[in-house]
């Protein structure tokens, strides 16, 4: 603050030496090199010679990677067309990028597989019901989330089964699961895995921490066995060994076998996630529950599990992400999932061009990335939310 005349006069009047400042000098602005864009660049990118080299290297890498990708996916892309001629190299179009016309034309196939065209509204209704269930479960501010859980874990599976499989009594013709395909199958496999793995996983986790030796032994063997082998062998077991183990006249459906395999596999991993949550609950909670006279199931259901599941939500969602990625493996035992429809469409002679495969894979990557990234963002938000409660 500048020294005003009045202040100076007052100072003189108070017999204070005039050339000594009575007020603080205003601070100088920070040097240009440490503020603004220049400062940011200097601190973050060019602080040392090694850092400069790293920056140049990284920028070169990005320049090598990004522009060709953008060029292929957007600039040179063909956006429409009816068959392979649209995406072939011709004299007037020497460079062809992604063939999006192919994805557009086969989109219904990618979505429904061989589901009869007249019945595809049933799949759409299923997707809508599922979306409602997911929103209800995931949105913490949604009303009556207890009803949401009943809807998601009990009502939805039954309704979806009737809707997708068909029930002639209510006028829905039966659609054999061999005709299901595409995203429908991927989402059905993932949803069945999600819906069944959590309750079974909770039971296995409780079993592993149980005081009954037989129960504990069974849980440990099941969990360690399934976690010790690759999913493919579990799927092989479900698809070639399961039919041997059941009576001859009851041959389980091919999709059902894969579902059993995926659900078992996911449940074993879920059990370990839940067990970690159970271990994080302090002993006092168990003892408190016992002290007020609750039985085992009341103690678990009312006191321990609500807290344990709450703190493991991020890990549960993470294991759902790997489950979602693992659904692609049903492809190997001959189920027509989304990735399989891409594989089938990309080698179809009608669309066979050099750019068809990359386009198909880019589309598949987009689908899986959106689903998985969405889930991982949700898990991270949950983590931050839960941390807030602890910080207070």
């Amino acid at each position: 603050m500048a020294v005003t005349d009045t202040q100076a006069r007052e100072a003189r009047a108070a017999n204070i030496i005039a050339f000594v400042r009575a007020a603080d000098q205003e601070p100088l602005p920070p040097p240009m090199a440490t503020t603004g864009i220049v400062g940011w660049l200097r601190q973050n990118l060019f602080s040392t010679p090694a850092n400069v080299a790293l920056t140049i290297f990284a920028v070169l890498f990005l320049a090598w990677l990004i522009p060709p990708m953008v060029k292929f996916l957007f600039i040179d892309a063909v956006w429409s067309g009816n068959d392979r001629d649209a995406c072939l190299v011709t004299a007037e179009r020497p460079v062809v990028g992604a063939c999006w016309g192919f994805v557009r034309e086969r989109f219904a196939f990618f979505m429904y597989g061989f589901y009869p065209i007249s019945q595809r509204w049933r799949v759409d209704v299923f997707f809508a019901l599922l979306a409602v269930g997911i929103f209800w479960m995931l949105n913490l501010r949604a009303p009556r989330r207890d009803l949401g859980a009943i809807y998601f874990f009990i009502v939805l599976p039954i309704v979806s089964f009737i809707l997708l499989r068909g029930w002639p009594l209510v006028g829905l013709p039966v659609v054999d699961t061999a005709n299901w395909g595409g995203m429908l199958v991927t989402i059905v496999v993932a949803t069945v895995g999600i819906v069944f793995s959590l309750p079974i996983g909770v039971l296995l986790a409780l079993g592993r921490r149980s005081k009954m030796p037989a129960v504990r032994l069974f849980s440990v063997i099941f969990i360690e066995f399934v976690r010790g082998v690759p999913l493919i062998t579990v799927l092989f077991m479900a698809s070639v060994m399961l039919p041997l183990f059941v009576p001859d006249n009851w041959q389980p459906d091919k999709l059902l076998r894969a579902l059993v395999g995926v659900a078992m596999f996911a449940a074993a991993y879920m059990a370990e996630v839940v067990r970690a949550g159970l271990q994080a609950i302090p002993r006092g909670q168990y003892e408190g529950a016992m002290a007020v006279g609750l039985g085992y199931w009341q103690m678990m259901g009312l006191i321990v599990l609500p807290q344990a599941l709450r703190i493991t939500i991020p890990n549960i969602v993470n294991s759902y992400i790997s489950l979602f990625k693992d659904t692609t493996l049903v492809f190997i035992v001959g189920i027509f999932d989304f990735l399989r429809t891409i594989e089938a469409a990309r080698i179809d002679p009608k669309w066979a061009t050099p750019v068809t495969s990359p386009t198909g894979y880019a589309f598949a990557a987009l689908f899986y990335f959106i689903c998985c990234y969405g889930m991982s963002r949700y898990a991270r938000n949950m983590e931050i939310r839960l941390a807030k409660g602890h910080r207070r």
Partner: protein
Amino acid sequence: MSVTGAMEKPKVSPLYDPRVRSVAYQVLLCAIIIFFAYSAVHNAAENLAKAKIASGFDFWNNTAGFDISQSLIEYSTVSTYGRAFWVGLLNTLLVAALGIVLATILGFVIGIMRLSKNWVVSRVAGGYVELIRNLPLLLQLLFWYNAVLKALPEMRDSFNLPWGSFLNNRGLFIPQPIGTDGFGLVWIALLVGLIGSFLFRSWAKKRQEKTGQQAPVFLVSLALIVGLPIVVFLARGMPLEFVYPERGRFNIRGGIEVLPEFVALLFGLVIYTAAFIAEVVRAGILAVSHGQTEAAYSLGLRPGPTLRLVVIPQAMRVIVPPLTSQYLNLTKNSSLAVAIGYPDLVQIFTGTVLNQTGQAVEVVAITMAVYLSISIATSLFMNWYNARIALVER
């Protein structure tokens, strides 16, 4: 107040006695398991008899009659199924071992890059991790195999790489080193170097504990392990020859042929697992509290020794357990080879052998047993390592 009344055992019906209940539950569980096991075995025997499929492991010594595109041991169509099993197992172990080494290197680089103060570098690493972790491995494998390696030029227009290597859609062809007379000495020198560096390390440690003086362990080990074999190699007059791949019109002779399936699988596994390892490494380094670094600086350690002597030993304690489980995941994920046709254990055994013999139970059981033993061996090692490096508290 009847104190004695409290001491008496309260009379409860056996229905509410926890011990009786617990026994009853366990008996029930065992009964259910035995029932299912019995009916499964019974049905399986009946179904197998009906389908006229033999059971037992007699097929092990029968002639396989199919060819395998890559084998580390001698194998031909007249070899037995047992031989085919070993070929598949070795192929699995080969891709897993190479994958683990490469994924560890790439993963550590990416993980450290992600912690870098350099904005561009950390963003590149972050983008890599987010992208790769959110795409299914199978999709990545199919992409590398079908969209990248199969799109390479034909044999005639192969890419010429340095040192007489070729790359085309039939694979990668590299020169084969063959040790001539006296190359065995180099191996001996390597062995001597390894033993020597181990002895030097323990001597240096003992001396440091006694006197506090440090010895240049790293440099001496490097000289012993790398330098000694090179010196021997040069002294013997470089007893090594290369057989270069020679390109014909349709075929390439000589050299080592690396299958495109192998390259695609290795690429896919390394890139996928490295993203997870990067996260493990980042979490491990962040887990070492900043106070440790500050304390080391205030004791006068420079940044290099601080990292080497203070931060990394503590970070490793956090890193190693999840790192081992990533190694295990990589090994198990190598079974996805079946999708692109690399002859690993699953492709050979649960694919071809299962189709030929029809003995699903035995074949799947053997395959699972192999993966289970790998898992158990790894977790035993992990427990041993954990016990060794665990914090020793007073």
